[in-house]
């Protein structure tokens, strides 16, 4: 397989995952904004959404004020935002277009149709009561793509590269959401586990479609401790860091099998996974959740660079 094709599959999957996660983030902002909260203050929830999406700087360069309309527009459709949902869908499609031959027809159709339909959105589609439908649709399209991929792609190197892209992105996003929640959403005056906090944690779980799963696993109210554990350490929660790294190391093993040799990046991934396997929450909170997540995000980013090096992405 061409190095460029491997890179294309990797980035296509990353961008598709990113589009879905952005939609989830906007959903969190939308839901929190529905709740009047003196503790968080008006606008803070949208600000934290921008921070989680790593989009605050670009947004600030264009807008002075934070309003729900401009933030949603910025994250979903603004042509000036290079990492809006629209641009992510476009980047996923362009990556797919550059190595069409590595995609099955169904993968391509899902990818292409999503971008084509999203491109015809009108401003009204982002507003008010139509927003949840749109966000839902983005998620559905991402899932349709994933379904098309899992249902049709041959299990060789191409499959592994796309899985790596999806799970590196997912791990990065989950870590960022948690980090932002910890840092910005948490009112200084309130103890972790307070009422407002509980609502916000709940919203985060909802945005990763994990509310039911949380209840099933913890059988109790939302606790910061448990939610963090669920999203960081659970090997069963499909958007957790641990789960993502189980897949990442499995995909790297898969590549090793296809190519008959392991890549240096394997060791980095295995080390990151080992930390998640060996850790418990009290260790993480003692060292500081923010520090833990920051370190994780850095390792995850370094792995992406190592993969590009080992597999001749360019």
């Amino acid at each position, binding site marked *: 397989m061409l190095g460029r094709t491997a890179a294309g599959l990797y980035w296509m999957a990353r961008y598709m995952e990113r589009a879905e996660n952005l939609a989830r983030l906007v959903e969190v902002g939308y839901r929190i904004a529905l709740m009047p909260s003196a503790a968080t203050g008006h606008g803070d929830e949208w600000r934290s959404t921008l921070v989680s999406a790593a989009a605050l700087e670009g947004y600030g360069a264009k807008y002075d004020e934070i309003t729900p309309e401009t933030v949603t527009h910025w994250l979903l459709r603004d042509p000036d935002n290079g990492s809006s949902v629209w641009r992510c869908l476009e980047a996923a499609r362009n990556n797919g277009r550059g190595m*069409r031959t590595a995609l099955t027809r169904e993968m391509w159709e899902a990818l292409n149709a999503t971008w084509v339909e999203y491109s015809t959105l009108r401003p009204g589609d982002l507003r008010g009561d139509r927003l949840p439908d749109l966000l839902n649709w983005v998620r559905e399209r991402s899932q349709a793509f994933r379904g098309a991929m899992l249902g049709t792609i041959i299990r060789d190197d191409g499959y592994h590269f796309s899985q790596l892209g999806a799970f590196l992105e997912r791990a990065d996003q989950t870590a960022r959401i948690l980090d932002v929640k910890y840092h910005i959403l948490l009112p200084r005056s309130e103890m972790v586990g307070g009422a407002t906090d509980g609502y916000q944690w709940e919203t985060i779980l909802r945005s990763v479609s994990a509310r039911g799963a949380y209840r099933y696993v913890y059988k109790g109210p939302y606790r910061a401790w448990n939610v963090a554990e669920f999203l960081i350490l659970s090997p069963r929660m499909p958007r957790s860091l641990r789960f993502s790294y189980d897949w990442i190391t499995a995909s790297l093993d898969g590549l090793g099998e296809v190519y008959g040799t392991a890549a240096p990046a394997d060791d980095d991934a295995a080390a990151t996974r080992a930390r998640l396997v060996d850790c418990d929450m009290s260790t993480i909170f003692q060292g500081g959740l923010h520090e833990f997540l920051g370190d994780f995000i850095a390792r995850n980013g370094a792995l992406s660079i190592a993969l590009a090096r080992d597999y001749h992405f360019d």
Partner: protein
Amino acid sequence: MAEVSFDEMGPEGGPVRAPYAELAQWLARQDPRELRRKQRQADTIFRRLGITFAVYGDDRAAERLIPFDLVPRILSAGEWRRLARGIEQRVRALNAFLDDVYHRQEIVRAGRLPAELLHANDGFLPEMIGLDPPKGVYAHIIGTDLVRTGENEFHVLEDNLRTPSGVSYLLENRETMMRLFPELFARHRIAPVETYPEMLLETLQSVAPTGCAGEPTVVVLSPGIHNSAFFEHAFLADQMGVELVFGSDLFVEAGQLHMRTTEGAKQVDVVYRRIDDEFLDPLTFRPDSMLGVAGLFDLYRAGRVTIVNAPGAGIADDKAIYSFVPDIVEFYTGEKPILSNVTTWRCSEPDSLRYVLEHLSELVVKEVHGSGGYGMLIGPAASKRELADFGAKLTAKPGAYIAQPTLALSTCPAFTRAGIAPRHVDLRPFVLVGDRVRITPGGLTRVALKKGSLVVNSSQGGGTKDTWVLED
């Protein structure tokens, strides 16, 4: 046009021609609303598949659909046999001509072709002189543009020997028709076209370098995703099961061409390139080319890799050479040409220029090196002012133009806003030349969807339709 065109289904109110007998009855039974629904269905299929093309200089429509017309065009087995024979004769002669052009130039020595037509021609590539491509084939993939003006009158309008495109539309049109109108396929015996990718791969493998051991590795070299025919590049690579590469994926090392893969370098033997000659190799041609591969041409000269079509093949589809093709066919095959040319005035010749200037409003004038319908004049459709402007250009640089009569292109029924109506068509069959000549039955029919229009180019708003060759 005042002149009445030949209609391939039959004259209005007159008898239906035999190949269309079934279709005419079927068409008469169709509800226009149902057809419109099918039309929308077809558009959705094409858009979802991403079968789009880019129109240069049109930002708003960066990717557009080529309109697809639902009504198939039908050729009888007999009609096709004659066309196929004529095409094969022509492409063999053109390949012999190319071999001669880059070797002894017997045709010039024999006084059958003026020497300056070769040497003063941008299409002539001095770098190719004395080079012997595998099996002596220069033009492997050819699109022969044909027009029809009567029951037995087919003419070659153009030979496309560089990187002819459109075959993906031919294949997808058939796919779409089979999905939309299975009942029509049950009522006709239609020659299949689906084997094209297989034939293409066989052709490419058959011209691998002579020293190539084992199964040759073939790639499709594309200039990138912004090229107007990118969809086709990807489509063909996919259908053949070979890599689609960009110039940046390839490199020359230790006397071989390689591609960069996840496991390191892999040798490449045959390059089906969809980039122009001048971009192939910055060391030999345009030094600013980012699309090609440095050192590729030297490898090619050394017989280490095959480039398809050969660089310099374009000299044979030059519009100035075109008017000599009937002579070329006779010269190299010793046979009368089966397919005729369209009458052509070479404006470089003073008598012809005078005639063309006097009859400008009746003629079609084309740039010798142009393609895609850009920069041409259609006399009958031009304003006085356009005629005067074009006349001035012609006088200033007569050698850059040829002129042809405005042909009464045949019409076929098409599904238009006003219902079923005749529209002008041409035909591009696709021919493969390797260890032997392979021709896909039919070809790509392009249709001028605007009433009365004669311009079928997709860049000028033309559409396409499925083309059926009936089996005996």
